[in-house]
């Protein structure tokens, strides 16, 4: 069955200083369908959606809603037209309740507009949540909910706006597999109610599970629209990157050598009695659910959090890690899961970010040696294939994939022997992803010991030599590359505590 076309965006163009972000792009969304919008980072997806939501003004083109030409001047007009966007970074007031957030700006009122009808608001919110069949108390504070629950509230808000077009920008980037299913159930429900959903995600399996149609953008241009059932994964990838990506996990055989790191009975904030070893040339995967304590373990190893008990041995020698500086000096490099929070100073230039951790090496007395710094930045930009117009570009202006490469370039500048990668490819596009995987393989080949945390099973399975399963702050098991499968990992996680 073919849904009625609700939204038609025609020949949309948008120019930023120096960049043509969108060049005559089109998008058609139909009632009762999930329409995936795909493309690498920087392809123009967000720009297109921001135009639809009234955040940005287009330079040229036409938007038709239900066949009528509309002029979206502000977020307010877009809401009035029935467009609702659920952002990647959720937009809500944490200290207000669920009901207050849902009705923010359109509170039910009594006789006078200034006088809110609190009980009516709660009643309506409860009804809304009940219709969605989710168990969220309407009077709970937003900040006390899980990310997935917060998302549900955002969806409730979209429904209460009587949105006919709902845009979801990477809604699954911060929720667990089970929560994804809850989300998908809601999406299917919205479909049957006749909403048109525009779904942005980098995760292939999700697209094929939930989307009916895909529109692909590349470098600000419209590449094509296909029905998902007529589409192969490889075809979709090559549409997105404009070339064949033959190997997503280019795992190379590296010689596994002597032990570089041994951790014994390590305890700290939210993890307990953790022991493992890491060898030269080895990629050690840390698998587990979101919030299992994996990040906490590596944060402590990098000196960001306190180690309360246990020992760390580096090259067989007992090591004391009480600060980040100590960790760096002992040859530990760390790439955080949150590049915007911990990885980069976004307002600083690419060059300044690259040298930040090792700035001392580029100083005489206290003076920064500009020439040497510049030359190093140039080398790193080339080595890591960072796409930037200049090393004086601010990090904030790079795409996610390139930002991540800057973080890698920064962490690896002093060639640490032990490299910790926490979700190294989260939120970056397929092209950059396979490049980063290739780099990781290369590092292992060069004899580095690598710890890689990933919540993407295919990544863990594809890249690791050995996998450690972490659950609720403890190590629940270990699997060699040959014996590891998605099922065997899940089994270990589910295993009851002895």
């Amino acid at each position, binding site marked *: 069955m073919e849904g009625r076309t609700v939204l038609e965006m025609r020949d949309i163009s948008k120019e930023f200083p120096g960049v043509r972000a969108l060049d005559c792009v089109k998008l058609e969304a139909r009632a009762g369908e999930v329409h995936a919008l795909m493309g690498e980072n920087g392809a123009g997806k967000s720009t297109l959606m921001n135009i639809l939501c009234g955040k940005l003004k287009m330079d040229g083109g036409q938007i038709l809603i239900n066949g009528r030409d509309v002029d979206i001047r502000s977020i307010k007009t877009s809401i009035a037209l029935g467009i609702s966007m659920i952002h990647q970074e959720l937009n809500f007031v944490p200290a207000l309740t669920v009901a207050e957030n849902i009705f923010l700006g359109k509170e039910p009122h009594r006789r006078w507009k200034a006088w809110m009808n609190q009980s009516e608001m709660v009643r309506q919110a409860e009804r809304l949540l009940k219709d969605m069949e989710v168990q969220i108390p309407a009077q709970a504070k937003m900040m006390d909910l899980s990310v997935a629950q917060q998302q549900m509230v955002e969806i409730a808000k979209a429904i209460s706006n009587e949105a006919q077009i709902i845009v979801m920008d990477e809604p699954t980037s911060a929720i667990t597999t089970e929560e994804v299913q809850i989300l998908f159930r809601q999406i299917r429900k919205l479909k049957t109610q006749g909403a048109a959903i525009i779904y942005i995600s980098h995760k292939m399996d999700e697209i094929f599970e939930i989307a009916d149609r895909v529109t692909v953008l590349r470098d600000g241009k419209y590449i094509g629209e296909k029905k998902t059932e007529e589409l192969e994964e490889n075809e979709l990838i090559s549409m997105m990157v404009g070339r064949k990506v033959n190997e997503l996990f280019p795992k190379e055989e590296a010689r596994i050598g002597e032990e570089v790191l041994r951790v014994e009975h390590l305890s700290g904030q939210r993890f307990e009695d953790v022991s493992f070893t890491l060898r030269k040339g080895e990629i050690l995967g840390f698998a587990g659910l979101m919030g299992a304590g994996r990040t906490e373990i590596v944060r402590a190893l990098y000196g*960001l959090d306190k180690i309360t008990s246990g020992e760390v041995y580096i090259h067989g020698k007992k090591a004391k890690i009480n600060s*980040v500086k100590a960790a*760096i000096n002992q040859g530990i490099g760390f790439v955080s899961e949150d590049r915007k929070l911990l990885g980069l*100073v976004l*307002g600083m230039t690419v060059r300044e970010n690259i040298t*930040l951790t090792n*700035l001392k090496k580029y100083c005489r007395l*206290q003076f*920064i040696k500009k020439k040497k710094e510049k030359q190093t930045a140039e080398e790193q930009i080339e080595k890591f294939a960072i796409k930037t117009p200049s090393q004086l570009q601010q990090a904030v202006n790079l795409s996610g994939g390139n930002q991540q490469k800057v973080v890698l370039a920064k962490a690896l500048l002093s060639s640490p022997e032990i490299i910790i990668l926490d979700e190294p490819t989260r939120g970056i596009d397929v092209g950059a992803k396979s490049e980063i995987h290739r780099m990781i393989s290369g590092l292992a080949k060069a004899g580095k010991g690598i710890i890689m945390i990933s919540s993407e099973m295919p990544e863990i399975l594809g890249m690791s030599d050995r996998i450690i399963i972490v659950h609720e702050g403890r190590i629940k098991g270990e699997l060699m590359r040959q014996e590891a499968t998605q099922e065997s990992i899940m089994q270990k996680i589910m295993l009851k505590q002895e």
Partner: protein
Amino acid sequence: MKETQIRGRTYREVFEKYAIFIAFILLCILLSVMKPMFLTPANLLLVLNQASINGILAIGVTFVLITAGIDISIGSVVGLAGVTAALCAQREIPIIPSFFMGILSGVLVGAIVGLLVTKGKLAPYIVTLGMMTIIRGVALLISGGRPISGLPAEFGYLGNKNLLGVPIPVIIFVAVAAVAYVVLMKLRVGRYTFAVGGNMYAAEASGINPNQIKMFVHLVSGGCAGLAGIILASKIITGQPNSGEGYELDAIAAAVVGGTSLAGGTGSITGTVIGALIIGVIANGLDLMGVSSYWQQIVKGLIIIAAVLLDRNKKRQ
């Protein structure tokens, strides 16, 4: 596309740095057309002399602002440093060590503020709000609430003498600006200052100790305030416990007019210097035109708001 700026690095940013300079030049041209008196060397030196104290305070506070902090205790430090130096001179301690003690009192206040902000984990605004009152109290207490006068004539040299025809306060202002520029733009600690202000967590994950940097900027701010305090005391050859009241706001205004963001991560010494000069030139110009000081305050406030508005619009493009 978001465009937050940090230092005059890209072409666009270099242009923006010149934009405030151009505004400054235009202002000067306008004033010299309206009042030819403005452009005389004597008047220009007067402007510089009057702007130097605010300029030195503003440079100090720029460091704090770049780390996303704030220091509103510096006005009181001006009073404390003047009184301290005057009390020392009164007790026949030689002039130079007396001045040194004055500056030291400022550094000491900076150290206390720094400790409260880093170890006490208190918000800089609250800490310095408290310190503003405390330090004013201390200055009044040690001076007995009275101006300390009858000081040796040499006490007034620093604030009133010329060197090669240039008032000494102006020379100190230029020197402080030059040193601050080098520290902020050429030294490692300057880079770290921007990093801590831009993203404290990323700085920490890069092995930088944010507390050290915060301590450093408060020492700089306190030291600059101490220096400004002794210059002011020397100018009037008196240790005046009430001097410097409200100066903190002029200093922060100069930094903000010069493009330093209160949100941290952004700012420059050249900007702050020009900001201080703009505020000085406007005060001078309004003086020359015989505008009442009440109006001057209104104009100053409008300029601060206009500068921030302009800056925001530039970023929004």
